[in-house]
């Protein structure tokens, strides 16, 4: 059976991504009300990213190395660990801090962004990057799961 922590980690991470997407949408044409909602959304995003980090990190450092990694490495898609997992686990470390920056910007410079189009554009780009990186994490997670599944199937035949 697949460890439920994998699903919880992915669900928390993707909820965080949705929260930052919500922040992005609110800040396209911000006013005072939208700014308030954007602050809440960004704060939720940071909380979900940190929860995803803790749950995923616990699973990765306890179960993955002993139960999953050796199976993938012996299977037909060893790159699922060698490239995807290695890159994912390290690039992921950027995300909680980028999330804090998005929250910090919307909280400390949000009022300015209502009028300053240049700053708002920079903010929207960095928030979009958070969303895209979050989606890339999900894709990499899918690749790792596929690598594990293909190894199990190859072992059965």
């Amino acid at each position, binding site marked *: 059976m697949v460890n439920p922590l994998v699903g919880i980690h992915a669900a928390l991470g993707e909820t965080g991504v949705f929260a930052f997407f919500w922040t992005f949408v609110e800040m396209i044409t911000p006013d005072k009300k939208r700014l308030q909602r954007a602050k809440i959304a960004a704060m939720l995003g940071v909380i979900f990213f940190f929860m995803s980090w803790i749950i995923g990190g616990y699973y990765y450092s306890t179960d993955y190395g002993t139960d999953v990694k050796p199976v993938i490495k012996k299977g037909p898609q060893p790159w699922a660990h060698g490239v995807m997992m290695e890159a994912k686990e390290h690039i992921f470390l950027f995300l909680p801090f980028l999330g804090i920056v998005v929250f910090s910007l919307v909280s*400390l410079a949000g009022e300015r962004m209502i009028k300053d189009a240049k*700053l708002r554009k920079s903010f929207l780009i960095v928030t979009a990057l958070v969303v895209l990186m979050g989606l890339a994490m999900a894709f990499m997670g899918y690749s790792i799961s596929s690598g594990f599944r293909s190894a199990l199937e190859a072992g059965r035949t």
Partner: protein
Amino acid sequence: MNNEEKAKRHVASCMITVVVVTALTVAAEMSASLKDGLKQVFFHHWVGKGIIALVVFVLFAHVIPLRVKKPLSKVVNWLTMLTVACGIVIFLFFLWEFFA
């Protein structure tokens, strides 16, 4: 310190954190002793990198007085570009390491 200065400090701290994570990731793969050291101190090398990243971010955001003179929009753009570049470096590094 006004709000904009605080925001700039957070952005700059994030930039430093991203660079530290990237450098530590590549260095730990190149040096087995560094990776083992992280394992011994923090139980797992990845946990070690995460804790170091957290410490670096908090240190530069709240303890070490960073002064950023450039406009906030420019600093945010630099963070975006730096993050993309470091992400590509990590991905290409592991791709190279796997096929080498």
